[in-house]
């Protein structure tokens, strides 16, 4: 061949052609698959909300499937709303029926992980302040947060499902916790993570961990009439009570992340759900 493969012109031409081809292929693939991927993510959210409330599909021994959740969601989730930092319903955010994906005031469309990232950044920025200013600033940050709440009607019983988001060892962790109509007893939870270590931190998404939040385990966020967060303890280190669950051996940071996100999120709902019940 007459082509000199080592000439600058050839190298430059090859690089440009390669970038163009690869760029086009990736763009085409990404655009073509965007629809199904978004749909999967949306249905997974519905799946988790229903699974947290222990709604079962055709196979009662495992989690409700994504397609079943898609069908049952509108029927079981009777209301969706956003609460502010003091647990009051934000006006105009109470929705029911089909989800309009373009409606930004619908809590279903809120990306809880993005919201947490923003919150975490603002929160960390307060670390340089002195004590008094720090407390004021942190209160201000907390009060502008929005907290999604799903009201479910499971076989005639009212149940509340709330998402929570936090950070594990590597990346985001999140979950959906179900509270009974009294707003205190926990009757289910589902957790998931973006990148926790398989077999260690990733265990938070396993049945044995989630089953600790089932109704028959008697966990509650209320202790003698006051808010008492659920604590994730070192496994085997102590007798478990109504406010503690076993953590993960070898997954200490992930366990601490779950502990922190539950503590922060459930506090608002502990105040908010009784207010909601009073309105009824």
């Amino acid at each position, binding site marked *: 061949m007459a082509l000199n493969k080592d000439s600058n012109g050839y190298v430059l031409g*090859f690089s440009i052609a390669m970038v163009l081809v690869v760029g086009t*292929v990736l763009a085409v693939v990404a655009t073509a698959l965007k629809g199904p991927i978004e749909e999967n993510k949306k249905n997974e959210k519905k799946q988790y909300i229903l699974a947290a409330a222990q709604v079962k599909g055709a196979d009662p021994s495992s989690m409700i499937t994504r397609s079943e959740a898609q069908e049952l969601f509108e029927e079981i989730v009777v209301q969706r709303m956003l609460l502010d930092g003091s647990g009051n319903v934000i006006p105009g955010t109470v929705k029911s029926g089909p989800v309009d994906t373009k409606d930004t005031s619908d809590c279903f469309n809120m990306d809880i992980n993005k919201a947490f990232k923003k919150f975490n950044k603002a929160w960390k920025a307060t670390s340089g302040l002195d004590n008094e200013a720090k407390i004021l600033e942190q209160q201000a940050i907390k009060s502008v947060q929005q907290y999604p709440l799903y009201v479910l009607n499971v076989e005639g019983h009212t149940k509340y499902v709330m998402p929570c988001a936090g950070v594990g060892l590597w990346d985001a962790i999140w979950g959906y916790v179900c509270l009974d109509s009294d707003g205190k007893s926990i009757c289910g939870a589902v957790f998931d993570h973006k990148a926790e270590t398989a077999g260690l931190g*990733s265990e938070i998404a396993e049945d044995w961990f989630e089953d600790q939040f089932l109704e028959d385990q008697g966990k509650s966020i209320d202790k003698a009439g006051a808010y008492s967060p659920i604590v994730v303890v070192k496994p085997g280190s102590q007798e478990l009570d109504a406010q503690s669950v076993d953590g993960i051996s070898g997954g200490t940071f992930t366990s601490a992340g779950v502990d922190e996100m539950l503590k922060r999120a459930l506090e608002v709902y502990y105040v908010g759900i009784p207010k909601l019940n009073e309105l009824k």
Partner: protein
Amino acid sequence: MSEVAEKEPLFSKKNKQLISDPLNENNPVTIQVLGICSALAVTVQLKNAFVMSLSVMAVLIAGNLLVSLLRNLIPGRIRIIVQLVVVASLVIIVDQVLKAFVYDVSKQLSVFVGLIITNCIIMGRLEAFALGNKPWPSILDGVGNGLGYGLVLVIVAFFKELFGSGKLMGIEIFGSMADGTGLYQFGYENNGLMLLPPSSLVIVGIYIWIQKTRSPQLIEH
């Protein structure tokens, strides 16, 4: 080498060796010590090890094929960059396809799909084999090295899951620790160290020891 390959049958002795060599005497993990990072991290559960091996093999075969087809066009000076682009694009496509059509599998693999890009075996095979060989042998080389990698991963994961969590493929082998049945009622406990990456090093070390004892010609002097 091209004039010989022209008349070769598809599975000639030489081509068969491309598959069998990486399983033992030229194993990418235990002999070439490549791809150790994922062998340490993705071996806590047997199931993950299987899926990871399959994904690596898929990328390895496709990457080998593409680079082999392009081998006469790729300028030598930027060949590493070209290989990297090929591997990275393949991994992104695999990731997107998994997310769109087998969402559950993609969730299980999570970060590890992305990490395939940095798996040294893939770059190693593209550079050492695909760049200088025809497409068919390159595909076989991909299959062989993928199997060799998978073999070590699965063996390591077998011991780690068995002694670390008392399970295999998620099924309890030694009885239930929570209920205190099976071996656990005699005071047996799972070894927490087996869940952590250092234990993989020990297992890979023992593997190499056994392998080199059985095939003394592999010992370097």
